[in-house]
């Protein structure tokens, strides 16, 4: 029982630490005292510009994006009662990618690319959930299969767009597809969505715990299943769209973070949801720091790092758990 009480403070501490590391590391490395000086309102002017205008906004954007992705994954896994569900498996990010690539091809600015990504994610959600709903009931298997097939369709469309694109556009497109935070400068919209969603989802936590036992059991225990499922679906779509708009397609965070937390903490959503927000944030902040320092001055797409970290960790946890 003491475990849940300890987890959130530990994660909060780790969150602060990860943000500290992210602002301290870079082409001009700063000592902890220099970093602290800037964060408490002092420090040298060069350090202030470096941290407050470049590194801190990016670190905050990474944190919020990671938190959003992990929360989206956690919610979708309960909605589908399948631990493999995540925004990427369900084709949401594929839709976003097609939107983004189309607007890049049209030569539109970054703001339009973000808008198109957002629209693409929502469109994909509508297609997947609309088709899976069909005339019958909303079975998780059908939803998952529809998502996987739609994702494959988006994948083909993405390849087509890459094939017909001028070579000058290709690097930007590939970076976007692998997830990239170097264009994320205003972290606040993502933070607002993250905080609001966690606050909205927390009181639903116990209902989600019951929904994880199946819709009939949930209805028998007093949960209004249909409204709850639609809420989950809407929130997950909004959260994913926001995350994809910030950073392009970053894979694995939504799949791995909630799963890892479940292996350690059990499956109480009242704990898993806030813990996912924090742990997802920590993971992506550290991954992005690695992405921009590992082969500096060149930058790696952050999605490469999350995949390279995530896959072995996930396989190890799965192997160890049984």
């Amino acid at each position: 029982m003491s475990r849940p009480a300890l987890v959130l403070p530990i994660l909060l501490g780790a969150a602060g630490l990860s943000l500290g590391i992210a602002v301290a590391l870079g082409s001009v490395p700063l000592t902890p005292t220099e970093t602290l000086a800037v964060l408490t309102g002092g420090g040298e002017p060069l350090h202030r510009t470096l941290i407050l205008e470049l590194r801190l906004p990016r670190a905050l954007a990474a944190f919020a994006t990671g938190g959003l992705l992990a929360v989206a994954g956690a919610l979708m896994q309960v909605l589908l009662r399948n631990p493999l569900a995540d925004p990427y498996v369900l084709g949401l990010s594929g839709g976003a990618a097609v939107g983004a690539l189309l607007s890049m091809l049209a030569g539109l600015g970054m703001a339009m690319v973000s808008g198109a990504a957002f629209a693409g994610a929502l469109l994909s959600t509508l297609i997947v959930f609309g088709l899976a709903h069909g005339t019958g009931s909303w079975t998780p298997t059908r939803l998952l299969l529809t998502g996987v097939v739609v994702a494959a369709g988006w994948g083909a469309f993405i390849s087509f767009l890459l094939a017909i694109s001028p070579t000058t556009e290709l690097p930007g497109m590939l970076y976007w597809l692998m997830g990239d935070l170097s264009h994320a400068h205003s972290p606040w919209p993502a933070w607002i969505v993250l905080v609001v969603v966690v606050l909205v989802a927390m009181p639903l936590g116990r209902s989600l715990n019951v929904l994880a036992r199946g819709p009939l059991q949930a209805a028998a225990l007093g949960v209004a299943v249909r409204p709850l499922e639609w809420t989950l679906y809407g929130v997950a779509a909004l959260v994913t769209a926001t995350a994809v708009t910030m950073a392009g397609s970053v894979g694995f965070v939504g799949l791995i973070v909630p799963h890892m937390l479940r292996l350690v903490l059990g499956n109480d959503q009242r704990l898993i949801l806030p813990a996912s927000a924090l742990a997802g944030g920590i993971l992506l902040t550290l991954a992005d720091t690695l992405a921009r320092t590992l082969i500096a001055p060149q930058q790696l797409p952050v999605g490469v790092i999350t995949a390279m970290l995530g896959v072995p960790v996930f396989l190890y946890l799965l192997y160890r758990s049984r």
Partner: protein
Amino acid sequence: MSDSRLLQPAPAPLLTLMDLVVDIPGRGDGAPLNLDIRAGQCWGILGPNGAGKSTLLHTLAGLRPPRRGTIRLQGQPLGQLPRRRVARLLGMVFQDHQDGFPATVLETALIGRHPYLRPWEMESAEDHQAALKALRQVDLAGMETRLIATLSGGERQRLAIATALTQDPRIFLLDEPTNHLDLHHQVAVLDIVRRAVAEGRSAVLTLHDVNLAARYCDHLLLMYPGGEACWGTTREMLVPNALERLYGQALVTGEVEGMPVFFPRTR
């Protein structure tokens, strides 16, 4: 309140079925059901596989709409009551359990408290006590921290019953409560149901064992494969001919301790 109880010897029905026809997709209308389930009654539903016993229980729990007719729960139409209120009055034990995610035995029993808790509220010490008591009743004491994936079929079934006990409803709807249970636990679980009924609750259960139904249920509802149905007190309903027609199986009838027993006739 007390005046009306003096005037009416029979307690008001908890659950009323009026011209109820359950909706079994692809099947014609069955006979309409008209019956009252009152406090202190234990109803057994007997019938062959596919007769619609589970569908009827799900319909009574408000989990699927009936094709025709109405169900009243304490006098109010079931479909119009909020789910939370229904869940405080009706507790359902399902035949299958969907365990998609790992959970402990205690957590699984505790979800029975869900209809009583407000959104932000955590389970209180009393809720834990209620869950632990229910686990003791079904012989699962000491297994609180076990993961449900490690339970045997019978232990999982008893846990589902513990969840319903933790839910503390007025009416228990039990779909094959003795499924997967050994002889001792079949009797133990039905004894729990009998005690709950003696306290003034009521129970509706589907059973495959006619002899257990004869011993534990005071009323029976027979559902025939063609959609006909008949109901009444156990003594009225336990007619060998009716049971043979119900199951399409010849029976040998005997008597043990003054109670009829039925066995399938084998060659």
